[in-house]
């Protein structure tokens, strides 16, 4: 199944959140700083999942949950389970608010805090 999915370049995967120490530390300092985006606007996948779907560490992806979507950076790390994607718990993960997401490559830049807040207005 993974081989076919590689050509679709769209990955449907379960999503789970976790508390990340680095993300928590930048939140303590300033939630409107670029470091906050760097540590929060992330989606982490397992190396085997990344390989199967042709995704690379640092690549920009559009992560969608129903009608909502965010542009996030991919982090490839074995702390993510093979069948799930991970996100640090923050306003980014709360915005998606879903246990299943679709990941596809994008050339657009990362969603900023201001863009995100605008969607709540």
């Amino acid at each position, binding site marked *: 199944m993974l081989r076919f999915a590689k050509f679709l370049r769209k990955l449907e995967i379960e999503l789970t959140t976790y508390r990340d*120490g680095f993300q928590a530390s930048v939140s303590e300092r300033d939630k409107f*700083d670029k470091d906050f985006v760097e540590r929060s606007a992330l989606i982490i996948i397992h190396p085997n999942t990344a390989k199967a779907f042709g995704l690379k560490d640092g690549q920009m992806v559009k992560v969608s949950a129903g009608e909502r979507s965010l542009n996030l950076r991919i982090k490839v790390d074995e*702390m993510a389970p093979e069948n799930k994607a991970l996100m640090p718990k923050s306003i980014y993960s709360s915005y998606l608010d879903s246990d299943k997401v679709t990941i596809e490559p994008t050339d657009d830049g990362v969603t900023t805090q201001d863009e995100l807040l605008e969607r709540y207005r």
Partner: protein
Amino acid sequence: MWTCTGCSCLCEDVEIDENTVRHACRIGAELFRGRSISRAEPLVEGKRTDIDSAIDKAVEILKESKGVAIYGLNRSTLEAQREALKLAEKLSAFVDNGSEFGRIVEAIFEGLIPITTIEDVRDYAYVQFYWRCDVHNSMPRLMARTYYARGKKRQRGYEEDRYLVVVDVRKSHTAMLAKKNASFFKTENDAELIGEFIKAIRGGVASGDVMRVVREVKKSEFNVILGGQIDAPMKLIEEFVKEVGYFVPLDYRTNSMGFFKTFGRRDELEKIVEDIDTLIVVGDDPMDDVGFDVMKSILKLKIIVITPKISFISKFADVVIPSAISGLECGGKMLRCDFKEVELKPPFKEGFSEEKILKSINGGL
């Protein structure tokens, strides 16, 4: 030495001078170092005002409210929590701190789950289960105080005198520490694994990995489960803790145990949002925790935010009241994750404490 209020470890050995923060973890270091960055200002409907006018406006909103909820209070002192309790009683308000530990804390208060302290874990505990809690990230210095530290009866270091068990749904950073004299269980079914452990401890047969841990459990009188959000029936957790020894609830939220002790309950914000027209947020940011759809409903309410720093929710607030950072800029007491009361002596004295702000609001009603 100062106390860090970055998480519920409440480490009491932090040293600071003009440019350096020593002994704190990355979360605590940023709390101290970034203290003066992004501070909140008194605002009414987005316009800068003075703190008294902001408090007056908050009182005016609350007087007209038909249903109120108070959210947060995790980094508030016990004194501020008690003041919030008075406010909640006066307004018949709902209270929520966003923590999912209510059920297990209730069982602890009822005496159904035996607990222990961080110091006793350090001094006596042989097998240490870290169950569904990636403490390496959420409470970064905890294991330095419980697992890696040498204790009175544990003098030979963690590789010989401790046995580490990590249970999680994924190979977390904490799980990566399980090497020598250690086991890692990857499971999505806590209840099934707990059942296996109970069976094996009582003399039954289980999988090889479980039997190996149980052999270690039986070597010592003092073993402990340091638990996160264990997904199993409470009765089963109670039985398991009694078979193993002791429990420590690892809710990283700084004074979450104080919240449960003060209020004795939690009204989940997601479930009561239809019943309120005003939300008071104290020292927290629900936008990091609450899902989009519920948050959209919350943002239609009147919102009063008491916060030391600019938060996402403060951008939507009708009133923002800036407060001092508990433990750093104002004193009081908090309960550590193991329910030990810790006195906070602030290195700086600035701003208004949450206790004082809540008292002023109470006085105006």
